[in-house]
């Protein structure tokens, strides 16, 4: 009821926006911003209501958005990861429910991969329109090191164990891991739980049932982490290696580590840091199966994409929706492709040949397209009140400061 009232209120004031005004849009400030900036410039040429893009540095983004949304100077439109990242705003009735808008607008409804559109919403409602590339987590590896040691990219757990043993014997760290940043460790838990217990286990947790942490598959995943750590699969000093400052990627491109489990942005990171390596030696594959696991080896974890959501208090709702619609345009998708991103639009496949690396783009697109399930990164899928303790507990597990059993107990207890 209150929601409907709010929406109606915004609808009316949105109409008055036709005589001009400004929409503020917050975006996560990284290399991809230039694509959004171009879209804004183009939109402003034809619209009476102008969009003003505010690029917030990545590390401050979540904090700044949160503070702004609690203040009178909140943005009208803002970048997010969908799922838990928008739950507090949905609960506070601060977001425009876009379900009916999307369903009645063919270009939005049919423009994007359906699984991606759903992944950005909550409780079956749509709160965001996809606006960036897909970011599945993949297993990257050093092709030369694999060739020298007569190994193939691992498909099964047995392959993986074999690779670990071989590389360790050569004094090469099997996996680079930026443990100091905590979130790279989370990727291991995400894939292990998916392969061991299937995506349903985390879905239950994401839907608010914390007893889901008590599922035997969670314990098994945590035990597998401990085994890998004890084996030395991540080397000895991963606790003091970062991803953010380039520590872990450098280990991979210098041949000190053989593999790196990371989001698809690892490709552009390597291209920036070690272009030669990225072009010649960087290989990629899906996360292998885990012995005895029931999960589908085609499942993917990571960030389906990013979304624009609209603040329910905006004075220019119609203009904001019009801006969001431009995200489905061919031009916008093309701009993303040129930037090295893989758009989540349904016709993206036909454009990928113009990508800086068509093979990587195609592999990534088909990985996501064929995936029966795409689990959103846990720290984005869960509200911050669960996500922060989760990252802490994962870090303790990897650092050997808690046992797999203690991890499960601690996560079940988070309220």
């Amino acid at each position, binding site marked *: 009821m209150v929601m409907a009232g709010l929406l109606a209120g915004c609808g009316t004031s949105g109409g008055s926006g036709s005589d001009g005004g400004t929409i503020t849009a917050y975006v996560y400030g990284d290399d991809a911003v230039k694509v959004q900036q171009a879209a804004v410039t183009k939109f402003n040429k034809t619209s009476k209501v102008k969009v003003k893009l505010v690029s917030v540095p990545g590390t401050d983004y979540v904090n700044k958005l*949160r503070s702004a949304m609690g203040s009178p100077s909140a943005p009208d439109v803002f970048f997010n990861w969908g799922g838990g990242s928008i739950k*507090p705003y949905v609960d*506070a009735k601060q977001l425009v429910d876009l379900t009916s808008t999307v369903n009645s607008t063919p270009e939005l409804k049919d423009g994007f991969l359906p699984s991606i559109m759903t992944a950005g919403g909550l409780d079956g409602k749509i709160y965001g329109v996809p606006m960036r590339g897909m970011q599945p987590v993949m297993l990257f590896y050093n092709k030369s090191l694999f060739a020298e040691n007569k190994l193939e990219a691992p498909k099964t757990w047995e392959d993986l164990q074999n690779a670990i043993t071989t590389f360790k014997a050569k004094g090469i760290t099997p996996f680079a891991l930026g*443990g100091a940043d905590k979130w790279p460790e989370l990727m291991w838990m995400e894939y292990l739980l998916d392969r061991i217990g299937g995506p349903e286990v985390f879905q239950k947790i994401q839907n608010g049932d914390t007893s889901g942490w008590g599922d035997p598959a969670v314990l098994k995943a945590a035990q597998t982490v401990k085994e890998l750590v004890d084996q030395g699969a991540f080397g*000895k000093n991963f*606790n003091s290696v970062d991803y953010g*400052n380039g520590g872990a990627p450098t280990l991979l491109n210098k041949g000190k580590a053989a593999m790196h489990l990371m989001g698809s942005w690892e490709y552009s990171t390597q291209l920036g840091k070690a272009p030669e390596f990225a072009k010649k030696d960087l290989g990629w594959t899906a996360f292998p199966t885990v012995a005895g696991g029931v999960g589908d080896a085609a499942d993917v974890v990571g960030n389906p994409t990013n979304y624009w959501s609209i603040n329910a208090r905006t004075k220019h709702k119609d203009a904001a929706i019009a801006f969001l619609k431009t995200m489905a345009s061919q031009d916008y998708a093309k701009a993303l492709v040129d930037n090295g991103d893989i758009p989540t639009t349904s016709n993206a496949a036909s454009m990928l040949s113009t990508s800086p690396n068509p093979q990587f783009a195609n592999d990534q697109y088909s990985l996501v397209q064929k995936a029966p399930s795409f689990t959103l990164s846990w720290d984005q899928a869960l509200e911050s009140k669960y996500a*922060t303790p989760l990252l802490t507990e994962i870090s303790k597990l990897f*650092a050997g*400061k808690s046992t797999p059993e203690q991890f499960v107990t601690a996560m079940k207890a988070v309220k």
Partner: protein
Amino acid sequence: MSHHTPHVKTRGGRKTAVGNVGRPPVSWALPGILFFAVFAIVPLAIAVYLSFCQWDGLNSPTPAGLDNWTRLFKDPEFRQAAWLSLLLTTVSWAFQTPVALLLGVWAAGRQRSRAVLSAVFFIPLLLSTTAIAMLFHALLDPNFGVITEIGPWFGIDPNIMGSSTGALLTVAFVGGWQFMPFHTLIYQGGARQIPEVLYQAAEMDGAGMFRQFFHITLPQLRHTITTSSVLMIVGSLTYFDTVLIMTKGGPGTDTTVLPYLMYRTGFQTYDLGYAAAIATALVVVATALSLILVRFSGFGNMRSTREGM
């Protein structure tokens, strides 16, 4: 008569007439008091109020009674953070005080190299904490940092930041490295105030360098030590930026000191009520420690070190 009496009373309340010359009225302190109220007292009061609320930063705060406080006393993470903060403070104090004191006393002298070296020592204080933390972070990178070259010479495992003790000691060391020049400066000032005649007399009595240091310099500096220690303790208790940049509270939670726990609770978990309770507890602990130190060092009595001279 009625005009005269208060005058006499006032005179009686004062120690000496000379001491009053030029002492300004209270109203002069008003701007300062106002500034302090707006930027320190009011926020503190709001924090204390919030510690009795539940607040996610989006909706309005809702009163929660003593919930946050009962949780605080039962929370093992808070206990660990409090312990780590005290440990960090102790280590920082024990490490900084002797070095800063000796350097300060030395810098108060008249050696030729002194001025140049003092200027060099002073540099760390001019750098921003963030820059320093990032610098040491790069130096201590376990794969590519200088530590991988130099560490083995001294039998140090390059994975310093990955071990719990190593990470905490590093945080204490980096803090010490940055703030020691400041304390050196305080001790230098203190040492220069010590009257030359004391040393001249001691020399005539045949006292050597060590006796002079322990029987003149140290006792004369005891109020300087208190001042510097209070600043050091309050500084170490609220030490935050280095932890955020160098360790992010890790490995695990082994460098999650109180200010970092407060930041994590407030600005990552958005449990601002509980974060306010942690902040309030931190204020109470810091104030208590400073008061204890001032009381037991005799600093509060404001007796002059030159009494009896």
